[in-house]
């Protein structure tokens, strides 16, 4: 918000990423609008996670520009980079909780590092975050190894939200969860996104989540964005991969009804 209202919180232009000699992304153009949930789909190995990791800065890019909250990350100095790091939260596929710290300390970690609040307030905020993601405050004292898969994802989300970020990256948030937990998790993301006004960049394979949570969907294939737009547009697309993905054995009949009706 420093540079006035920004339409695109993330803007990726002609992004090229190589793994050794293998080209994974070849000219990706995509943008994330403020306040929307953008879902990323694509075949396994199409480079969805690579794209997310490149935007976060975990992987080097060969060419192209990435603009986050109006700042070109190539031109940003260390302070600007740190300021951007503070304004996004990342939920990794396996949660990536620090296993040597309790749940509470995991959530407090970024708060202590960046905000230097009093111990009392830090702890209260951590507990508030835990309750916001639907966990009991008593989870605060437990270690990640004592939690179930669904709880790990929730704690991971609480940690990603610790600094009240503007952008949230979710890497397959519902993978490994049973359908009921996955549905609850979708609902949680939706309510948090609405109440906190976050822009969400979500990599997923879960057709139900795509349908319930995402405002827009981008499809990645052959190193490029094949198609981007609303669910209706995906369902109407004639691209062979899209038709088999959205009309395949695992797609639900009721979507088509809902979209047409």
């Amino acid at each position: 918000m420093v540079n006035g209202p920004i339409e695109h919180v993330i803007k990726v232009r002609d992004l090229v990423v190589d793994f050794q000699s293998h080209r994974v992304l070849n000219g990706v153009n995509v943008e994330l609008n403020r306040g929307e949930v953008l879902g990323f789909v694509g075949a396994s190995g199409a480079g969805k996670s690579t794209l997310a990791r490149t935007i976060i800065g975990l992987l080097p890019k060969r060419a192209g520009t990435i603009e986050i909250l109006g700042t070109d990350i190539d031109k940003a100095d260390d302070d600007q980079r740190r300021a951007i790091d503070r304004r996004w939260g990342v939920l990794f596929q396996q949660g990536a909780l620090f296993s040597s710290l309790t749940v509470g300390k995991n959530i407090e970690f970024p708060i202590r590092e960046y905000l230097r609040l009093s111990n009392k307030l830090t702890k209260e905020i951590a507990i508030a975050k835990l309750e916001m993601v639907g966990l009991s405050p008593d989870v605060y004292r437990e270690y990640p190894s004592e939690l179930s898969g669904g709880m790990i994802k929730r704690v991971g989300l609480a940690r990603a939200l610790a600094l009240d970020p503007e952008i949230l990256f979710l890497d397959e948030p519902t993978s490994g969860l049973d359908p009921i937990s996955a549905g609850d998790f979708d609902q949680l993301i939706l309510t948090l996104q609405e109440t906190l006004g976050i822009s969400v960049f979500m990599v997923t394979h879960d057709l139900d989540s795509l349908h319930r949570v995402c405002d827009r969907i981008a499809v990645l294939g052959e190193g490029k964005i094949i198609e981007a737009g609303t669910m209706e547009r995906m369902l109407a697309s004639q691209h062979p991969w899209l038709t088999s993905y959205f009309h395949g054995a695992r797609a639900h009949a009721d979507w088509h009804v809902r979209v047409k009706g």
Partner: protein
Amino acid sequence: MAAGTLVGQARGDGVSLTAAGSWTAEYAKSLEPLVDAAVAARTAARSIAIDVAQIERIDTYGAWLIERTLRAWSSRGVETKIVGLPDRHRGLFEKVQAGTNKLSPLPRRQNPVIATLESVGRSVALVGHDMVLIFQMGGAVVAAFLRVLMRPHTFRFTSMINHLERVAWNAVPIILMITLLIGAVIAQQGIFHFRSFGADIYVVDMVGVLVLRELGVVIVCIMVAGRSGSAYTAELGSMRMREEVDALRTMGFDPVEVLILPRILALVIAVPLLAFLGSMAALYGGGLVAWSYGGINPTVFIARLRDAISMQTFEVGMIKAPFMALVIGLVACVEGLQVQGSAESLGTKTTDSVVKSIFLVIVVDSAFAVFFASIGI
């Protein structure tokens, strides 16, 4: 963007506070004293309202600070309410209000004296438990070995050769270098002190006996425990963390037979070989120093060595090597299989593995020393 403010004014027996500006994470540090002061100051009021209409930006931090203030007042019986809440912030406030933000109390702390005694007692009991586990593992390895002897085609020969390459062949350079230096240092110290009473030549006896009987094999075992024992523990530990060990079991394989037996056999073969190479390198190092520093030329050194040591000296040293290898392997595997889910536990167990195996190597060495002394060798 300005930091948040909180201004109040009294109205009869009520107080109305106006919050404005940015109530976000970056300003939370300066907002907290503000709300604390507000809570501390107004004690006489019967009802308090916070007007949030002028807040420009707010996030969980700001919402919680306001909620916390209201809760502090309510607990004193003051009537509280929020006024002017815009629709766009309603969801956030509801979310924050929904939480209890209370941890259940911790169980009462124990008397520190009793707690210390308890932890000492537990560690002593653990030592016994560890010994039991090591013997159990020894038994399981022997049983697996006997099964393999009856059905030799089930033995994982390739796996053993692979481990042999890692623990024996790849360890040769570092073992040679370290033992060479140890031999050289012993010879140098020996010459330095023996020279004062003209007994330089006895340094050859000392180097020969010390290296072949004791130091060669012990130094090599300490190196192997640090180098290969730790690797075994870390490998098995991470395999356990990823449920690979359980996967083997469900497929009807015995993890001891598949994972542990080839590793331990590789160690039992490797350590005597390395101990031999190490002893030779130490003698060589001793000889070099004796020549360059003590003026004992190689011919004299070798002739003296032949008188000073017998085949038995060498055998006494070498016979210990496979037993020490077994101890290192068993400890490493026991610790590896005890790894729990966390990265920290993998680190602790790897440390434990190295510390315990070095300790037990020295215990085994002492036991052998007592044994050989009592049978008069």
